[in-house]
């Protein structure tokens, strides 16, 4: 069994070489599902460290992009040893960049952090119409709907999406968080969301608070 603390530390320090060599050695040892879940957990704890370092200003957006890629690469490598089993999920989240907006980097950073925090994330991609959010939220019985946008035109699309959740009777069943460069407290009120953030790590903490 690999040194889990070392893996968490390497992930937190974004030491790709150390993370990948630890994971490769681990996979070569024909690991059990139980041990693999422990490895996954150690990676997730490393991502929590990344979030803390972002909060403190040590890391910034580029580091979160890098962390997201590193986590994805790690999970893809570990996945075969899980043989279909997955770690326990803390909640279901439907996420997407709203209609008219084609940006996805911020959304993807948030997705990586949310997944590493244990959320099951259904990513609808970019330029997502309100009805797609509504249909997916209904289908998976989502706890949270996350609306992302960069362009100022996303404000109307965010509002239209929340209005659609309302008119379909879903609004009381889901929490809505909006994120992106354009969001403010005023916009949050206008849209009718429950929370807003320009900081992906903070956003995930808000979501964790909702599913406790």
């Amino acid at each position, binding site marked *: 069994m690999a040194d889990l603390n070392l893996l968490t530390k390497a992930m937190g320090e974004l030491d790709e070489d150390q993370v990948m060599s630890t994971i490769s050695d681990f996979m070569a040892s024909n690991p059990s599902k139980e041990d693999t879940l422990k490895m996954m957990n150690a990676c997730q704890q490393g991502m929590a460290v990344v979030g803390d370092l972002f909060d403190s200003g040590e890391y910034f957006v*580029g580091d979160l*992009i890098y962390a997201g890629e590193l986590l994805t690469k790690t999970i893809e490598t570990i996945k075969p040893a899980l043989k279909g089993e997955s770690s326990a999920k803390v909640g279901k989240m439907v996420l997407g960049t709203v209609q008219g907006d084609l940006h996805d980097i911020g959304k993807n950073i948030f997705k990586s952090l949310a997944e590493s925090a244990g959320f099951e994330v259904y990513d609808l991609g970019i330029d997502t119409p309100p009805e797609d959010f509504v249909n997916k939220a209904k289908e998976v019985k989502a706890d949270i709907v996350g609306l992302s946008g960069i362009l100022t035109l996303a404000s109307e699309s965010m509002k239209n999406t929340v209005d659609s959740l309302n008119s379909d009777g879903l609004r009381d069943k889901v929490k809505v968080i909006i994120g992106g460069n354009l969001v403010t407290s005023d916009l949050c009120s206008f849209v009718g969301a429950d929370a807003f953030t320009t900081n992906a790590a903070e956003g995930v903490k808000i979501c964790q608070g909702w599913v406790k």
Partner: protein
Amino acid sequence: MTDVSKKFQERVQLYKDAARHKKTSRVLNLANIWTWKICNSGYKLSEALFDYDKMEDIVCKFHEKYEFDYYMDYGLRNPLRIADTLGFTDYQINDDTCALSYVTDISYMTEEDYDLIIENYDKFLWTKCMPGRYKNLRGSNAKEMLKKAAQELITYQKFCVQMNSQMEEDYGVPLCLFAGVPSVLNSFETLYLAFRGMKALSMDLRRIPDKVKAVCRALGNGRAFEKYKASTQQGTDMHTGPDFSLYLLAHVILSKKQFEEFYWPLLKEIFDFVEKYDKIVHIFNESENSRLYDFYKQAPKGHVVVHFENDDLFKAKKEIGDNVCLCGGMPSDLLARGTKDECVAYAKRLIDELAADGGFIFSQDKMISYPNDCSAANLLAVNKFVQEYRI
């Protein structure tokens, strides 16, 4: 002197005085208004962006209605006719929502290309980047397409000159900031915007930082800046507001430490240059920038105007207001959804608190682009107030 000439001189002087931190009787009102002016013009976005006559009509009528002192853009920002000729397809125009969107973050270079950029920049540009970006440069008739694009470029440049001249001669408005005054795109911005993209560059900063630094050192502040430096004369140009402009966009991925390592040497060169030659630079800063205030504290006083997007300008005034002239501040949120009275009250607060001792240029905090970014009635009320209010 005609009224138009007087207006022109007053506007140039107001810009210079604000940049120099001199107290002025009123603040300069700079339009951070982009495609929004098309949305309210009666023309479709898809026609205005491809028809320079229509764009001219839009820009002139917009000015006659709102009477800003200064403009970021005269409809010059999206030269899609050139891009279309080259087969650029990574954008969408939606006339129903009046939205122009670019497909974001495409990488037109690989990790290996860093070496080629340093060894032979033109080879990289014409064999890797341009054919990657423009599909019409990949085929057998690439030269023909390039000739057509060059013709479109000349037409576009003529339109830029014409718009800038017309705004000066008919309305007394100095050269706009985009495609008016010279603009500097440094090597880090070029990597981010044109070559590598946000995601790939973020990875490179961690995986191959020395190569990124080497390209930044080799290309510096870019060819346009080198050309500008070579022909520059001592003193600020009294025919324009800023002598040149700079856009900070790529810094949004950088921590303070990374900024110091990768970006600061480039910005420092600009600061040293404007101080040495007594120039004024207008720097547009995307996103929120408070982590960079320590660098702006090193700006030479009287030479740097910083246009912030998401920063709290009242806080910025306290921290860096002694060194740089601040620009921006009017929230698009409020312009879009507030009342006229709320908008005017906020504009008054901005001027009272930021311009009392000089060093402030009034503008919108975000690039106003889409129909619901701003209410026309609110904008008119604010502009009337800013024009008439005396400090």
